């Protein structure tokens, strides 16, 4: 089991390393010069050259790559070209919006989906089940940004119940901040909840068909007790897989949703930095996002260990 753990962690580290090379290489070939963009068209060629020197852009790519990586390892994400502040500060500001948003959406979708999915499975074939299946079928065909647009139109512009967007900052108190994240989280969560509840339903049905469950039932255990004692844990394996995937998807989804609700999240920072050719910000911010996703995948892998004792021994 320890071996399994170490192996997983090593692979995660290797994945990160490869990802960092990809990100760096991609931005090496992006056209446009950050020095030029910063100084505008008034700048003389000398001034641009001086600024390039100053920013360290004239050093060989390999040297810049390694200084970036060593910086990252020491927690130094570099300094933004355009803002002249530490990238860490910028990223820290933004990730405290993107991450809670994705988490909130994940919690919402799980809180909705698992009970609904379990309920549908236990009432399999009933009108309730059929209705849930139909609604979720439509639900996961809805693009989250379109749902967001409709919600903004109905709740914010038309009924004026909630703010149309924006973020007051965590300093402004927990309640206004959560309020600002509510609609974005709902838009992200609902389509995901639709998928997750279908998966929960079929996972439970699957498990209920297994021999050991039949045995338990045959031994006289009540339906409810069987589910609680035996079926749930096995149902959680596919659900966990999807949760891991969903979190990555939600984190990426915040990029679009941030657009609709004008939240200053990580996605917008990346888009903005790409437009301004603030490459160091793009590199570091993308790496943070990628690292988060890899970390989540690692956590999901570890969660398997909990859910499936068989995995604790030998190779998955």
């Amino acid at each position, binding site marked *: 089991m320890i071996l399994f753990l170490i192996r997983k962690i090593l692979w995660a580290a290797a994945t990160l390393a490869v990802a960092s090379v990809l990100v760096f290489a991609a931005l090496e070939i992006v056209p446009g010069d950050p020095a030029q963009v910063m100084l505008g068209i008034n700048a003389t060629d000398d001034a641009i050259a001086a600024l390039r020197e100053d920013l360290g852009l004239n050093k060989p790519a390999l040297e810049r790559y390694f200084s970036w990586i060593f910086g990252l390892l020491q927690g130094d994400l570099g300094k933004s070209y355009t803002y002249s502040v530490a990238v860490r500060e910028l990223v820290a*500001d*933004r990730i405290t919006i993107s991450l809670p948003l994705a988490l909130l959406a994940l919690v919402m979708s799980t809180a909705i989906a698992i009970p609904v999915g379990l309920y549908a499975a236990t009432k399999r074939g009933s009108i309730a089940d059929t209705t849930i299946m139909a609604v979720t079928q439509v639900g996961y065909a809805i693009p989250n940004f379109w749902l967001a647009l409709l919600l903004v139109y109905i709740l914010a512009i038309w009924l004026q119940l909630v703010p149309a967007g924006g973020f007051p900052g965590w300093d402004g108190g927990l309640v206004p901040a959560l309020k600002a994240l509510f609609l974005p989280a709902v838009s992200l969560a609902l389509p995901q909840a639709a998928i997750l509840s279908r998966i929960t339903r079929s996972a439970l049905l699957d498990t209920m068909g297994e021999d050991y469950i039949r045995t338990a039932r045959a031994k006289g255990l009540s339906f409810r007790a069987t589910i609680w004692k035996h079926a749930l844990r096995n149902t959680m394996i596919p659900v966990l897989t999807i949760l891991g995937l969903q979190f990555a998807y939600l984190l990426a989804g915040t990029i679009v949703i941030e657009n609709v609700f004008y939240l200053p999240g990580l996605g917008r920072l990346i888009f903005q930095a790409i437009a301004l*050719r603030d490459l160091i910000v793009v590199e570091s911010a993308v790496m943070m996002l990628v690292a988060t996703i890899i970390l989540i995948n690692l956590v999901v892998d570890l969660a398997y260990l909990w859910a499936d004792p068989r995995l604790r021994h030998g190779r998955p």
Partner: protein
Amino acid sequence: MRTMKKLIAAAMVTTALAPVVLAGQALAAKTSLVMGMALEPPHLDPTAGAPAAIDEVVYANVFEGLTRIGSKGEVLPALAESWDISADGKTYTFKLRQGVKYHDGSDFNADDVKFSLDRARAEGSTNAQKALFAGIDSVSVGDANTVVVQLKSPAGNFLFNMGWGDAVIVASETADGNKANPVGTGPFKFGSWVKGSSVNLVKNGDYWGTPAALEKATFRFISDPAASLSAMLAGDVDAFANFPAPETVPQLQADPRFKVVIGSTEGETILSTNNTKPPFNDVRVRRAIAHALDRQAIIDGAMFGQGTPIGTHFAPHHPAYVNLVDRYPMDLEAAKKLLAEAGHPDGFKATLKLPPPTYARRGGEIIAAQLRKIGIDLETIQVDWGVWVPEVFKAKDYDLTIVSHTEPMDISIYSRKEYYFNYSSDAFNSVIEKLNATTDEAGRYELMAQAQKIISEDAVNGFMFQLAKTGVWNAKVNGLWENSPVQANDLTGVSWSD
């Protein structure tokens, strides 16, 4: 050259550049104001950068110069209480205001003025407008409250120049930190900057002049037109000096909560053409394009009716403006005939590079549709400013592009060598040369008229419309500028009525 600043200012009107964001909160209390801006400044030191967004946050609010520009473009005293000009017009003696303190508590005096002006015109200066200071021969300190500036030759606009954001007075101790933590003498102190979201200013309690009515001012950065509208409707933002979504203006006008002020800018919005690149090097092709443009449809479609058609590169509100809109009336037959004469009876293919502002992106789609009718097949390419500047403006690697030139009185760019239009006309150059040497107004207007006619005759660019300025603010806010003689959001006189 101030064009970039102006171009970026133009971008502000309608930009959808990188998604810049804001953080919104409930409606502002009566002593705070949230001002929406399309672009976020890269830093906050107006003496070290071109972007108009810097001035739009700090000018007159945080930093002050010897003089300041008022809402109608007039020169007013600021840190200089008064001044004397020598008989030969070359020596300016400024009498400085006393008892002025910087936000960090240190005193303002004549040494700071000398430091600021010398710093701006020094060899390695990073000031974006060094030309403003080029005429200065020397700056000397008379006493603590007197500064003498010696010019190389008389310059009538010197006092106006000293009112620019690039000429504000900074203290030597804090000058280097002004990018992140601006320390000035103005009625507002820098509070905080949430990158990507907002800059907060707070009232300066020790201000030398009339204190500001606002306790707190916030500049929120929202580049997305849709988000701007939501922010305005939701009350998250109290005012936009340049509202980026013209299509929503009727809705805002109909809403009693808002006041909408539509003015004109100095922005000639044109279909810039690469005059040396075939087939655009043929004047018949350029004239054909001019005949194919339906300006009113562009204004209605892209700007929802806001904007005045132009036929040359000159602001319609200027007294010397010549109306040349009808020089090339919309006439598809004439356009096709000209194309055929030029050897393109079946039209040709070309590219149209579109920077982020709405006027360009939407206008570009309309123009592509209009030119398709005469057989010109345009591929529209959307570009960031980050690509537009080096590719189009610097390297001139383009066929057509759309941009609004918002510098006042900028017709002389057509005489510039190697400007991105690649236009060169001896006749035009000699008119501009004469103009520069002419001082009497009637003579100047006559020459300006000639210049306008020459570029119209040569159909250098597709002249489309004068960009409108759309200010939108809460009807209870008083004292915001209705016009923008300089790029600024002067909040010193802003207050709320009940």
